[in-house]
């Protein structure tokens, strides 16, 4: 039901947003709320189709997803209106991707998400936008090809594609999984498949980048973990080696790259890449019972904070023409509300406590310690301490420096409500961990 509601609204909404974006936004928000209600009732795809199951963990992730999408749609203005329809489609497909327990459907829905993301970035206003969009498209197409190659290999060895009775001990399974992971690492922006993301995230429209780097990445993280869980259990040594290696390389390189950047969107893009690195630690620690709780918590926390920072940057760019670090000097005075939200979410990304960013990192990294990978966790926490360097550097520009321009930057009501929703998510999951860890600990695919 929730799937149908979102798709139907997505098809209808272009009729409204030509004339009045406010009504279109309201309809979209109502659609997200209705979808969330159906998810709560257990009447999502699982009640209609086979191969979809709803667990408590899935439900929490879906609530986070729908709340974030509603918040994003509230903040949109003007030429960003096509995003509303695309987000409704994206929401619907993401519900499927999160609920599915079939590997074939996982690959199909993954491709659908990829196609929606190409349309998302194709909202081109200038040369930079088109460069980012082309890069996202070409990298995505390459990734799709690689994933399909791996999947074709895998399909020779397995009779069934259900997560529970896939054959994971075939002759080609390990190489097939490795090839598929190479493709999925493009989407998760793991070094060395990250190069497109640094440009795409920073050059496409920031609202699209918020969805691309925040929403889609979180959904793909959870779905990928569920899809590959059986493989990771079957090949424990390869899992630890592959994922620890890529985790360390990704976070270290991305953090050092972020330190050099002058463009704020590029800093946030590299921070997003670094976060993919942290999120690989629960993958490496798949043997631990905390691994799924870790990845679920990470995704839920990340969806709120990453989306929020890009949306605020979008507001800054639109209202004050902010591009570089020097442009946000003195924003603490000019735009107190924006700056407050931005600072809190940046602290959350940096892993400061009482915000979701800390507890999610704590649980995800604890999974690593639980699996006996404490040296890797030590590298990861030192990396996240290094990352504080560039987050605090942004905050330094906002609050400690004086600006040349004194014009106040106003915050629209929609933007305020959207940011409040995202802030509520960040703060709530930063203090109350019971639901999410409980749901993540008792999982079965």
């Amino acid at each position: 039901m929730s799937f149908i509601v979102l798709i139907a609204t997505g098809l209808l909404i272009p009729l409204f947003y030509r004339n009045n974006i406010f009504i279109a936004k309201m309809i979209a928000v109502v659609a997200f709320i209705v979808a969330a209600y159906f998810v709560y009732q257990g009447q999502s795809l699982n009640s209609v189709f086979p191969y979809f199951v709803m667990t408590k963990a899935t439900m929490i992730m879906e609530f986070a997803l729908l709340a974030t999408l509603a918040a994003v749609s509230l903040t949109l203005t003007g030429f960003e209106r096509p995003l509303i329809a695309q987000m409704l489609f994206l929401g619907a497909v993401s519900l499927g991707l999160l609920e599915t327990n079939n590997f074939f459907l996982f690959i199909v829905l993954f491709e659908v998400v990829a196609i929606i993301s190409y349309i998302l970035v194709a909202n081109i206003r200038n040369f930079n936008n088109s460069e980012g969009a082309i890069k996202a498209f070409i990298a995505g197409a390459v990734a799709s090809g690689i994933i399909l190659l791996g999947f074709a290999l895998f399909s020779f060895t397995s009779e069934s594609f259900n997560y529970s009775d896939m054959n994971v001990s075939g002759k080609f399974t390990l190489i097939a999984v490795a090839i598929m992971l190479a493709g999925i690492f493009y989407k998760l922006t793991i070094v060395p498949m990250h190069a497109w993301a640094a440009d795409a995230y920073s050059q496409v429209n920031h609202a699209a980048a918020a969805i691309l780097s925040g929403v889609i990445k979180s959904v793909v993280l959870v779905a990928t973990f569920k899809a590959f869980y059986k493989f990771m259990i079957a090949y424990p040594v390869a899992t630890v080696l592959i994922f620890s290696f890529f985790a360390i390389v990704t976070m270290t390189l991305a953090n050092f790259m972020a330190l050099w950047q002058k463009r704020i969107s590029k800093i946030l893009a590299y921070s997003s890449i670094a976060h993919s690195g942290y999120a690989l630690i629960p993958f490496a620690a798949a043997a631990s019972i905390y691994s799924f709780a870790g990845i679920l918590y990470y995704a839920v926390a990340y969806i709120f904070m990453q989306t929020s920072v890009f949306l605020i940057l979008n507001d800054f760019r639109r209202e004050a023409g902010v591009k570089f670090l020097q442009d946000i000097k003195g924003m603490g005075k000019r735009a107190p509300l924006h700056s407050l939200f931005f600072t809190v979410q940046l602290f959350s990304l940096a892993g400061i406590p009482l915000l979701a960013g800390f507890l999610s990192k704590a649980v995800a990294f604890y999974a690593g310690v639980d699996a006996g990978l404490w040296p890797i966790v030590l590298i990861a926490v030192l990396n996240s301490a290094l990352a504080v360097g560039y987050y605090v550097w942004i905050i330094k520009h906002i609050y400690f420096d004086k600006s040349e321009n004194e014009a106040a930057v106003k915050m629209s009501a929609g933007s305020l409500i959207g940011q409040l929703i995202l802030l509520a998510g960040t703060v709530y999951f930063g203090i109350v961990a019971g639901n999410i860890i409980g749901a993540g600990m008792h999982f079965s695919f």
Partner: protein
Amino acid sequence: MVAIDIIFAPIFLSILVYFLTKGAEHITKYIALGWFLVLFFISLSWLHQLPAHGFLQLGTYLQVPAFNFDLTLQVDALSVAMLLLTSLLLILVVFTSWNEKNQASYFSLLILFSGPIFGVFMTTNVLWFFMFWELTLVPMLFLIGMWGAERRIYAAIKFFLYTHVFAMFMFVGFFLLYKQTGYWDITQIKEAALTTPALIWWLMFAGFAAKLPLFPFHTWLPDAHVQAPSSISVLLAGVLLKMGAYGLIRFTVELLPATTREFALWMVVFGLLTTFFAGMLAIYEKHIKKMVAYSSISHMGLVVVAIATMTYDGLSASLYEMIGHALIISPLFLIAGWLHHKTHTWYMNEMGGIMKYAPYASAIFILAGMAALGLPGTMGFVGELTIIISAVKSFGWWIAVIALGGFISAGYIIWSVRRAIHGEPSEIVLNSTFEMSAAEKFALAVFAFLIVYFGIVPQPIFDVANKAFSSFFGGM
């Protein structure tokens, strides 16, 4: 419910306070003062409710059964002593920053700071302890970065990054504690269950050592303390450094006694190095506030030596010296900052003859300085004497070299008094006006009174120490 409210209410309401008092900024300091008085009296009531041994239960909140994780709040005499010290310093800091600029944000940040700092001393859950520990950095970052002196931004970011990086070692240590015992609560963790106690000990020690700070990890402190406004230096020296010492007592001596005994000599070596090295730097320093900052580091070295004895005497002495250090260093920082504010110079050799123009401040500077070098009748004397006696009892006569620390502090204190307070007034001093507001005078008087009072009547603090440490070693 009151226990959890005192931690979380200031964290969330401080933002509200900021936006509500934006038009009438002077109200904020009264709100802050009122709140800190409430905190002080609540801590005082806990002191009276304390059981003879162990913890006073304040409740368990936010349970996460799957992770065996909850916010357990309980206080023993050691935590209550820290809470009383914290709230007292917060109250006095309101007076010393009575005329601070941008009051709405300044006092909102102070209120915000009071939440996590109470959390640090109130919870016995290791992960929540770490969360509050980290959260104290955020208001401090803004307080140093926005109200500090010329190089405030450098100092604020260095302080934040440095302590954050070292806290990360502690974080992994805490993870290993839980991994190997299955409990987050320090009252339930048993040392015998640990498989790698040495590794955990060193990881945790790195975090505490950077906060204290011990000798090789101390470089953030001179910058942060010098660039911070004086009132914030008071909080840094009086409260944040105490977090490190508190952590050492709680997480090494109490939690891992056997491992700590194994590495106690390392602690002594680090403590002695800190005392001598920082003391030497203080002699060399011409910068008045840097001199005070190094003196503060030097005294924390003594605290670590006292903790390393792991005896009832040593721990009591360390608690006494912790409180004494907070009360002695604070007026020194305040007067050093005030002198800079009036004369616009940091250097003692450019001052001189201040006694003639600002007798009140000079008198209290001399009193606190004498306390810092251990003059009988002040807190410094009792603290240093008990530390030396307990250390000699535990480690043998050679540890008496620690008394050299007292000589070194005599060197820098007396020389600084000679250069800055006495002597011929310099050009700069002659051209300055020395006025002190009544609020600042009041705060300094309270510090001076407490230094002398507890120096003559040390028993109240040792009574608290008796309650705090008797359960460790079977009482006295």
